[in-house]
């Protein structure tokens, strides 16, 4: 493990405790990452990214693809059910 990743419970004293007292906020904060706490996640968001022209074309292309394909699926299934294929 990278030493930078070491946590308080990785120390001899921290690990000695059989079960942590999770009513103690320090015990909870010592094992979770800062952006893992529910309140922290509610406070911060990953903001909108700038969508380049290429990305917009890709996403629209995918959308058109799905709509066309869904129509074809319905046509195909109706043909199978009515035995017209």
């Amino acid at each position, binding site marked *: 493990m990278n030493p930078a990743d070491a946590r308080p419970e990785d120390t001899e004293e921290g690990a000695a405790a059989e079960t942590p007292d*999770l009513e103690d906020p320090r015990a909870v904060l010592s094992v979770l990452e*800062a952006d893992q706490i529910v309140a922290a996640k*509610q406070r911060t968001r990953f903001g909108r990214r700038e969508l380049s022209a290429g*990305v917009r074309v890709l996403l629209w292309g995918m959308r058109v693809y799905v709509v066309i394909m869904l129509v074809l699926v319905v046509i195909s299934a109706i043909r199978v059910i009515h035995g017209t294929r």
Partner: protein
Amino acid sequence: MKQRPINPSSSSARPTTEAAADSPLAQDLAALLTHEDADRARDRWKVNRARRIERRSRAAGKLRVLWLLVGPGVLVFLGENDAPSMLSYSATGARFGIGFFIPFVVLTFAMGLVVQEMTVRLGAVTHRGHAELIFDRFGKFWGFFSLGDLVLGNFLTLVTEFIGIRAGLGFFGIRPAVAVGAALLLVFAAMTTGRYWTWERITLGLAIFNGLFVPAALLAHPNWREVGHALITWTPLPHGNGFDILMLMLADIGATVTPWMIFFQQSAVVDKGMQPRDIAAGRVDTLLGALLATLFAIATILATAPLLHHGIDASQFQAAQFAEALEPWIGRAGASLFALGIFEAGIVAAIAISTSSAYAFGEVLRTGHSLNRPIRDAWPFYSTLLGSAAAAAGLVLIPRAPLEFIVLIVNVVAVLAMPPALAFLVLLVNDREVMGDEVNTFGQNVGAIGVTVLLIVAGVGFGVATVFPHWLKF
């Protein structure tokens, strides 16, 4: 610990591995901790202790760490070995026997592995679900499109799970209303645990019964030389109506890569509390899930292969009919195992898929969305979970509901909805503002884009075959 309302802040999230205790906001956060945080901390504490044991006793510690971190990957793959998937593998074995489709199924699971590995990294680094990230990074417009695909696919798939449950238990003479009602009760019981860990272990315990198809396959006495030959040479190639072969290929692809798997595994990784240093274990978990699911899928093909050798026309078979038709060759015990396997496939998938819908809704509505929350704290999340399952279960019991139509299209719809889902996934996992150093490598991008292209080619092939059906008659 009670949750206090907090003021929304405009500050941006960023990938970090900083411990909450070391954060400048630690004091503030300490006052805002929830029951969900405490449960997640308990799970993390166990993982960290196991890591300490790992440093003293490598093998025992490694196994303990793996035991604690295994879950989302195995669940997602065994969940995707669901009722329509097992039906698809049964049809494959009954119509084409041992040949091309055995290695083809291995390939589809390899594709699934490439996709699901990315969700592990996304979840562990960002601690956010997939729907939440799409809404945050691409906005509501694209978010609702993505959510729409998920909701449509999930509902159709859930319906087919309950068809499988009804058919599987129907083999034992259990009435449809009783079978569907019992399954719904099981979904409810699993969600009321109030602990992600307990829910995960219960569902894993059920999922392992996907292995029932292995003894069913052994009772069919497959020719192992043929199996080995097929795996190496991809032969004999399937013969017959090209459109039917293409549909079966699409159904088998749809049995391994679907949008709900992306949303589910990422949210489960987050709910489990996995961190960037757990990514390696998450990969092992995902690989283990893929291997088990591949084994059980191949077992299903082998179990139904005798139908081909005995000239049984299985083209119109539904789940329970496969079990009934197999009875003369694999015995009552084998057929019962097969029917139970279909039931298990349906119930595990019903739990996983309804949970994936609930996670996505909770993330988008910004309400509590964790299995670590008690029902009273996250009732919209649990209502979505149970409501989606109940709606699908109810539809199955309505006389003359278009169930045949849904069964026919469900896996194909999954394949067709996959390229847009993969586009969002690949864009997110290459987004350095979100992923930091865990962005895709060149090789991972080659794999992910390769899978997307393959799915698009398969979809376009389906489209061409639908518009010009005579092209595939040979």
